[in-house]
């Protein structure tokens, strides 16, 4: 499907991204870029489910598990994050299956599904706060500094290493997105989101398909949480888990555009730059203001631009060839997303 020209564009864009830290070394800007890449990965993970109408507000929970399990295993058992991260991902995956299975098996969809997952992220936050003897509660938690091998502890002091790690993780997310996009599962899931009964009648195993994408999404989100924890070396329940983080993911994915691969990335760029600008602009008085603007923008976006910035721009640019059917519509959007994204990258 991917043409020669598009492949070349991706290669050039990536080469430029990899080369960037060696040319431009301002630590603050690199820090912002790392944050954007890590959160982009998290938002992309969310949108894997979200684009099929599976709106989960439980991803804050998965992210929190990824971050806290990794850090707790390192501090209390001395287990290297190289082992801790897979364990934390498995933990998040198991939780996703436990909550997902009854939801999908018994057709808990729409409002019900959102509320159940919303409660899930609320509960994870409560557990982290309740186990304050181990997790430090709402005061936050810091992984111990590695005494020996930095690589073994996945702790690096320089921003360039972290930038490259974050870039790799982000690219992994985009590749998985495209992999799902071209798989049979995508057609099954699109059919499910249109009409569950019809899809089931056509031979789609609704429960299994939904569980697969949920598991994948939860595993990736946990990875994002763990990477965030390793980079920041400080986590609080509010920054990596809970309803606010879940809503932030939904918000960024919607602002960027849910149905294009780079949409969540665009959303991350916009939201993080916005938060940073507000933080610097207001100084210490900004506590709360950034979220205030977030909230107002989210409401405005949902009312006026439900397709997101990237999605809407692509709609405007799209030549009016014919009226595409639902799934073709997205293919067109996706292809043009790549073209649009080129100058940005």
């Amino acid at each position, binding site marked *: 499907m991917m043409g020669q020209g598009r492949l070349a564009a991706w290669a050039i864009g990536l080469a430029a991204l990899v080369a960037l830290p060696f040319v431009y070394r301002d630590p603050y800007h690199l820090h912002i870029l790392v944050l954007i890449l890590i959160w982009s990965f998290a938002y992309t993970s969310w949108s894997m489910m979200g684009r099929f109408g599976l709106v989960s507000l439980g991803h804050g929970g998965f992210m929190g598990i990824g971050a806290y399990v990794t850090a707790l295993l390192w501090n209390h058992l001395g287990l290297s994050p190289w082992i801790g991260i897979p364990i934390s991902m498995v933990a998040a995956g198991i939780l996703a299956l436990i909550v997902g299975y009854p939801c999908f098996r018994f057709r808990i969809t729409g409002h019900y599904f959102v509320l159940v997952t919303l*409660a899930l992220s609320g509960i994870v936050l*409560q557990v982290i706060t309740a186990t304050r003897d181990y997790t430090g509660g709402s005061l936050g938690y810091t992984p111990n500094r590695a005494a020996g091998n930095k690589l073994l502890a996945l702790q690096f002091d320089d921003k360039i290493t972290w930038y490259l790690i974050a870039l790799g993780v982000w690219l992994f997310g985009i590749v998985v997105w495209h992999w799902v996009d071209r798989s049979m599962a995508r057609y099954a899931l699109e059919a499910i989101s249109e009409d569950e009964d019809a899809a089931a009648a056509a031979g789609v195993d609704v429960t299994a398909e939904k569980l697969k994408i949920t598991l994948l999404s939860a595993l990736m989100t946990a990875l994002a949480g763990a990477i965030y924890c390793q980079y920041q070396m400080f986590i609080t329940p509010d920054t990596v888990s809970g309803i606010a983080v879940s809503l932030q993911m939904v918000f960024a994915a919607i602002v960027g555009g849910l149905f294009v691969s780079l949409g969540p990335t665009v959303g991350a760029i916009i939201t993080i730059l916005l938060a940073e600008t507000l933080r610097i602009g207001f100084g210490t008085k900004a506590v709360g203001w950034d979220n205030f603007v977030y909230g107002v923008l989210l409401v405005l976006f949902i009312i006026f631009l*439900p397709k997101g910035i990237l999605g809407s721009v692509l709609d405007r640019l799209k030549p009016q060839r014919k009226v595409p059917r639902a799934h073709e519509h997205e293919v067109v959007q996706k292809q043009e997303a790549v073209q649009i994204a080129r100058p940005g990258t």
Partner: protein
Amino acid sequence: MFMQGFLDIFDIYLLEAVINGILLGGVLALLALGLNLIFGVIDVTWICYAELVMIGMYAMYFLVQYYGISYFVAAPLTILLVAVLGAALHYLVIAPLLTAPPINQLLATGGVLFVLQSFATVAFGIDFRNLGIRLPVLAFGDMNFSYARLLSFLAALVGMVAVYLFMTRTFTGTAIRAISQDRQIMALMGVDTKRIYLITSALGGALAGLAACLLVLQYDVHPFVGLSFGPITFLICVLGGLGNFIGGFIAAFVFAEIISLGGLFSDLEWGYVLAFAFFIVMMFIRPAGLLARRR
């Protein structure tokens, strides 16, 4: 001899926890009723419902502590304020989205959650505040009950009975119930759906306001207080069946007992975890809600 004494104490604590659970259930049922009302009539879920309660709690705090107004004068003012907020929420956010996919409406109220939380953070700071009213503790035999809880329970019951009477005895209430049964037909029957939606939203807000007046007696208010009882309210509504008033009422007491008894053995937070685990199990047993008819 020693064992006997141990059992006696244990039973007393158990009974106390059970009764406290019932008292807690009253307020939770009130919260669930408001949310169910909105869902049943307008087919929208207000994710920010608990945040409306939080704003109401701040209103109570400022009216009573700052302006020195008596609690019983401040309460109706607060209920009125949150009712207006509920109507405004519907008018500004939900009404433009009525024809949009339901998920969009739900997410828009998620945005409102952000707005309300950060508004409270900016305007009131993150300090924990309380009314400073210390209500006596009621001693009954060897058991102690907080007077505030008893009062909340009774007020919640009165509130629910008032809503029941309004829904069954007035024309507007009948129209609200009719709309929840068939949205299209009622408009053809000459009922102004927009007006009914606004009234329902205001009523849902008023219930949140009443809950705020009661919760502020027991809990400190801070910008994130909604997070501590919001998720449990949603679980109650889902378990009871969204839009099902009686199911929500029963589920509220079931959950309150689990939280109260769970809190007896460990922290309150673990009571929430227990409630969530119970919820997951219940979904396997009765996926469409507590009172769903078996087909």
